[in-house]
């Protein structure tokens, strides 16, 4: 066909690099790109202008493009794509790349670059993007020959989504985008060097089953790997936990893989995990870790972590195994395949589980549950200040009445932990939060990405008043694309999580953590063409939530909450799981907070 429509270009006819790029993206199934233009990527914007297959969402800051791509990826299981210009565009993207690296989110980021003949000359808007992003990505590429372009794009998508997923940068010098070259379709042969193991070793599965069947105090600990392995992994996990009758906990990243409403779910574990989850981790005799990485937020003091257990660890990334905690049965595999194999071997093995011992274990766990570690008191007198926990609980309860699919994103801080504790996630891919990097400013752009992928869903960013200001410019993006994202700010007028540490570890000296000179969020919403609302006391809360949910536009709901509230339970840094603080009444006697603990974050 003589028609030169870019995405119909002929493999045999040379076309400009930018068109080859779009063709490759399309062949990789890309339908949306989050980006921001600039001089070095003008050829790509020109090619985008001439086609309809790929939608471009114009963000207001490159960091947001990356978080939006992450939100898109996490809520769909597909690779998210961002496009930024050279120099400052690329450096602005670094936080988002690192965030995706820490949380294993598949993202491809296209960065513009000065033309190849100027590289190394300190040219205008030149940055050593591959150098800067090397430790911030799973892998990166600088395309130096037009003929490599399509191959590199296909490989980048393969690397981003395979094995332990992660961000990949493709640095694109401007001459490569202009020069004509031939298209090459995605390869059919396996990658020459990167071929992660996905199938579990049958012998290891058998060893795992033997240990699990012999357990008297078993515990299942799951993480983001279950979510990354797709819905089949979450289903297999749920079946295994129900079949075995074992208790199950999850990291922040894994919430939703096992339904939170199930009686076998003990809630999140770790620094702000539940009493029952952490004590069960401490006291178990067999620990099955599926797709989690023994992160320091989860283990507390390493030499006191789950001291009496034999440990089985399923992970797609061999470098996550035996990194922090030595394990007895390592299983390198995709979580869905490993869980399917585990279930099959479990069913094939006639050995019964030790029912009386497990029943006794459950009685002990139920005793811990009886402490009701997430209890709080919401005063009901008219005009009472809203407890942040109550705000989340009401948001959760009221959203149960909504027919739409619900996705939650969060910023970083106390509100994030309260969201994890009080909002119950029943399905995978419905919570997007910055776990590994803890990036304030993540939630709003991530929510944007989720809303683009799910136009009819209800997408709520549970935010803090400090975090939300870190990417508040994205209100403009919400307006431009009429994205009805709901921003639910727990406004405690403090960088609450930092304040909490200052209270517990630094004598209550609240150095620089008061959120002074806050904007009027209602007016701010208004000026960005959104709807602002405010709840000042407990009397307003339900009404504001209902109004927010009923509104078909973007909303900022500014919820004034108790500034003094702290997030409990808490395992102070450097303390063990059984040295948990349950509430403020106990804070004075914190056994775990040592000088050694203070150096930790």
């Amino acid at each position, binding site marked *: 066909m003589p028609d030169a429509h870019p995405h119909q270009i002929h493999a045999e006819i040379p076309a400009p690099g930018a068109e080859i790029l779009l063709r490759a993206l399309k062949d990789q199934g890309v339908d949306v790109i989050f980006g921001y233009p600039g001089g070095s990527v003008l050829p790509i914007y020109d090619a985008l202008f001439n086609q309809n297959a790929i939608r471009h969402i114009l963000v207001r800051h490159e960091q947001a493009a990356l978080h939006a791509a992450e939100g898109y990826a996490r809520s769909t299981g597909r690779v998210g794509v961002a496009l930024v210009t050279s120099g400052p565009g690329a450096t602005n993207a670094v936080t988002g790349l690192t965030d995706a690296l820490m949380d294993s989110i598949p993202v491809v980021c296209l960065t513009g670059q000065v033309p190849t003949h100027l590289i190394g000359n300190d040219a205008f808007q030149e940055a050593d993007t*591959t*150098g800067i992003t*090397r*430790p911030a990505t*799973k*892998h*990166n590429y*600088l395309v*130096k020959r037009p003929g490599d372009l399509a191959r590199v794009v296909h490989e980048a998508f393969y*690397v981003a989504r395979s*094995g*332990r997923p992660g961000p990949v940068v493709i640095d694109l010098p401007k001459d490569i985008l202009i020069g004509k070259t031939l298209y090459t379709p995605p390869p059919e042969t396996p990658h*020459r*060097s*990167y071929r*992660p193991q996905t199938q579990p070793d049958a012998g290891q599965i058998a060893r795992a089953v033997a240990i699990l069947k012999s357990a008297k105090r078993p515990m299942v600990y799951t993480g983001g790997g279950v979510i990354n392995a797709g819905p089949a992994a979450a289903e297999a996990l749920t079946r295994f936990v129900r079949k075995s009758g074992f208790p199950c906990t999850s990291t922040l990243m894994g919430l939703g893989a096992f339904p939170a409403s199930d009686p076998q779910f003990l809630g999140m574990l770790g620094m702000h995990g539940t009493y029952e989850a952490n004590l069960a981790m401490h006291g178990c005799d067999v620990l099955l870790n599926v797709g989690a990485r023994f992160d320091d937020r989860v283990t507390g003091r390493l030499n006191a972590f789950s001291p009496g257990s034999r440990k089985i660890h399923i992970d797609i*990334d*061999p*470098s996550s*195994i*035996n*990194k922090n905690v*030595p394990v007895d049965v390592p299983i390198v595999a995709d979580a869905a395949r490993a869980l399917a194999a585990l279930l099959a071997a479990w069913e094939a093995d006639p050995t019964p589980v030790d029912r009386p011992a497990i029943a006794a274990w459950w009685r002990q766990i139920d005793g811990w549950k009886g402490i009701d570690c997430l209890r709080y008191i919401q005063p009901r007198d008219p005009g009472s200040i809203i407890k942040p926990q109550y705000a989340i609980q009401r948001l959760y309860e009221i959203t149960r009445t909504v027919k739409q699919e619900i996705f939650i994103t969060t910023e970083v801080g106390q509100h994030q932990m309260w969201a994890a504790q009080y909002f119950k996630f029943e399905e995978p891919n419905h919570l997007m939060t910055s776990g590994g990097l803890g990036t304030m400013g993540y939630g709003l752009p991530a929510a944007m990405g989720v809303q683009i992928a799910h136009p009819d869903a209800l997408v709520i960013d549970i935010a803090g008043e400090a975090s939300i200001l870190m990417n508040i410019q994205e209100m403009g993006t919400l307006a431009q694309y009429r994205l009805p994202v709901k921003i639910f700010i727990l406004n405690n007028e403090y960088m609450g999580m930092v304040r909490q540490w200052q209270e517990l570890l630094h004598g209550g000296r609240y150095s620089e953590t008061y959120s002074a000179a806050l904007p009027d969020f209602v007016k701010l919403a208004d000026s960005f063409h959104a709807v602002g609302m405010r709840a000042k006391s407990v009397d307003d809360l339900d009404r504001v939530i209902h109004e927010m949910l009923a509104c078909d536009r973007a909303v900022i709901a500014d919820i004034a909450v108790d500034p003094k509230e702290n997030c409990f339970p808490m395992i102070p840094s450097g303390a063990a799981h059984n040295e948990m603080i349950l509430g403020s009444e106990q804070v004075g006697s914190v056994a775990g907070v040592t000088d050694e603990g203070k150096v930790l974050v």
Partner: protein
Amino acid sequence: MPDSQLNSCRTATIAVLVDNEPGILARVVGLFSGRGYNIDSLTVAAVEDGGNRSRINIVTSGTEMVIEQIKAQLDRLVPVHRVADLSKNGPYLAREMALIKVVCPHEGAGGNNRAEALRLADAFRARVVDATTESFVFEMTGSTDKLDAFVELMRPLGLAEVSRTGVVAIARGTRVI
């Protein structure tokens, strides 16, 4: 793994076969510096596939857990084809080469170390590759320990400069990585 094995340090010689692409060395070195691993020695050269594959030999040290971690981290780099722990998988050869400059004037110019330097070089099978009335350059191949020993012996005789390649290593017998 028993605790004693986890906590005691050992030296490991690791061979890594990689795609010979720009940035691969930066990737490997960045991995070591970023994660705080030691590099005692590192060598790299194209070895296969018409120059498209390079072999990196790394000598490092750490606890067993750290060394296993280093290997796993190397193995998950995209351009890495193979990672082999030569020091763990049976007997292997490890060699480096050094060029050693010793400045020792002959007797007429007041020196009296030349004969001694040559005698030691002979004993260590070091070759004289350059000689002037004032100096020698010895070329020597051997294990790191042997090179260290020779360099120490040359110190009092006028050792002026040392240039070493770092370790290259290969398994004995028919085994390949």
